[in-house]
């Protein structure tokens, strides 16, 4: 088990003075640790703040501000001003752990209902989030979310989605959120072969907008059971020597649909890689919390394996390198529990 690096705290013996001759309590290393604690992209390092910040007297704080040009602006004013952008970011990062805790404790139906709402109220809309919710939950889990949605918003998911999208997106998304898929294992081999050929013909020969308008492609993806679709995926690979989801790369929504239905770990590992990349958007960062919290007790082991394959390093290691503080510890503990399941 990898050990989390503890922040070293140097005990300052005796009195130290800065160049103004004022007493200082913190070392340069501690200053650096404090800067890091304030500058995370995924959470804040509460421990550093508790242990180092409390020791800072006014002289220390002045030094800290002067030596942190990305946090404090040294402009025409005769004092070091908090960078408002950084202050706003810090607010969000402080809340990251709180939001993870709330998501974790929330009833899954309420959580998914709120996410459905958010997916189309954000600008730009998060279609992949809606597809994720409709396709990675079981029929009964998503039905629960639909009921919760009605309780919370006094309208059905179907009407909410239908009125906010049109054309191909409406045909796909409304069908995905409405369907109550058969969850059993019984399949019709003959029908699968036929439908696999239909998909192959459409995907290999038609242009993008023709595939989007193909009623049969839509019918197969939005009504067939998950086991059925997984079998089609295998059949497609056998017949065409390529993967169905990769062949749909041009149409991101269809690709996500296929992955979410046939191989959720592939989809989720992609989301995790993006969340912990160099410059993720706030939406991408939030997905880190969402994926860990919602998949711990489902398929975390498979997701971690897929992540390792895709990214080249273990998931836990990546989280430890990217996130800070309580938020980091929370996520790592959940992933560990999920992998032990």
């Amino acid at each position: 088990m990898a050990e989390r690096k503890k922040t070293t705290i140097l005990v300052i013996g005796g009195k130290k003075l800065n160049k103004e001759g004022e007493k200082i309590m913190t070392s340069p290393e501690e200053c650096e640790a404090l800067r890091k604690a304030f500058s995370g992209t995924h959470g804040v390092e509460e421990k550093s703040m508790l242990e180092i910040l409390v020791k800072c007297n006014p002289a220390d704080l002045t030094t800290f501000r002067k030596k942190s040009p990305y946090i404090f602006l040294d402009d025409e004013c005769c004092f070091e001003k908090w960078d408002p952008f950084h202050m706003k970011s810090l607010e969000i990062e402080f809340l990251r752990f709180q939001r993870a805790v709330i998501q974790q404790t929330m009833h899954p139906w309420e959580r998914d209902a709120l996410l459905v709402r958010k997916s189309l109220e954000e600008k730009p809309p998060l279609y992949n989030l809606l597809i994720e919710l409709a396709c990675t939950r079981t029929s009964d889990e998503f039905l629960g979310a639909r009921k919760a949605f009605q309780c919370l918003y006094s309208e059905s998911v179907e009407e909410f989605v239908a009125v906010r999208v049109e054309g191909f997106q409406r045909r796909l998304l409304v069908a995905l959120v409405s369907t109550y898929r058969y969850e059993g294992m019984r399949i019709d081999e003959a029908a699968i072969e036929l439908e696999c050929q239909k998909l192959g013909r459409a995907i290999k020969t038609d242009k993008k907008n023709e595939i989007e308008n193909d009623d049969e492609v839509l019918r197969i993806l939005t009504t067939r059971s998950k086991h059925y679709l997984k079998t089609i995926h295998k059949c497609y690979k056998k017949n065409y020597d390529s993967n169905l989801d990769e062949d749909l790369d041009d149409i991101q929504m269809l690709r996500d649909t296929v992955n979410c239905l046939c191989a959720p770990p592939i989809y989720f590992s992609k989301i995790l890689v993006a969340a912990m990349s160099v410059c993720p958007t706030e939406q991408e960062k939030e997905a880190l919390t969402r994926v860990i919290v919602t998949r711990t007790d489902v398929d975390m082991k498979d997701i971690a394996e897929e992540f390792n394959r895709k990214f080249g390093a273990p998931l836990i290691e990546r989280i430890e390198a990217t996130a800070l503080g309580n938020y980091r510890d929370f996520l790592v503990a959940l992933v560990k529990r999920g992998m032990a399941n």
Partner: protein
Amino acid sequence: MATLLAPEDFSPGEDAMALNKAFEGWGTDEKTIIWILGHRNADQRKQIRLAYQEIYLEDLIKKLKYELSGDFERAVCHWILDPVEREAVLAYEAIIKNYRPDYRVILETALTKSAEELLTVKRTYQFLYKRSLEEDVASHTAGDMRKFLVAVVSVYRYEGEEIEEEVAHSEANILGDEIQGGGGSGGGCGGGALKGAEEIIRILSTRSKPQLLATFNYYKQIHGTSITKSLGGDPADEFSAALRAAIQCIKNPKRYLQKVVSHSMNRVGTEEDALSRVIVTRAEKDLKEMKDVYLEKTGRSLDDAVASETTGDYKAFLLTLLGNQDYF
């Protein structure tokens, strides 16, 4: 209110034995079958089926299918099923059995129920046939009809009473645009092809029923004619017919079913499947109110109409379900 007359006391074992006796010998004693099964409610019928299985180690339904025939057999075999199971079976038969799926049955299944009731039917359908209702409807239909029917059977409608007046008003206009687009404005006999179907499908298959009723009212106010009249009466245009049927069913399910019954007896020959379906599915629910509607709209009692349009054991069975005690 139900029209079915069933006694409080009964013995499932005795009934099972009496039925078995009715099967014995050369012919079948249909009168006994009608007398017993036509006077038992769903719970009692279930107990009889179990008793028959226990005593004779045979499925009563299989036996009935073997011993009876024609419209009478179909009606009895549907009747004996548990109501939810029956709905699933009727939907399945409507989709699979014919060359073209009977969209009216699919619409009735979806639109005469609450959201929870429809969900129970869908679960039962999956249990019986190992596929979802949605995938079977989808794979046996095409085009706009498919989009509409699949949407209508899939939706888990909001059941609150709230209405958003602005939305109702704007959607009434949207519907007007799509329907009237065929040629010229204004209502009247419509009959032209729909300009589009996306919005009409969206509105009819996602909005709550109270919201839709408000929208239909606004439609009439704005366009001077009801939405069903605007959709025209061209029987060859199946999709428009399906839209009209859905709207009528949403507006007033009892009146809609009364029309189905009237229609079934209106032509040369009777459409027994439709007639049986309505009587069998409503006998334990609200057939009494439907009889009142029928009398009001046609000037004739439903019992008289059935008596004159049907014959034999089939007639006797239907009249029994309608609450007649003395027709034998």
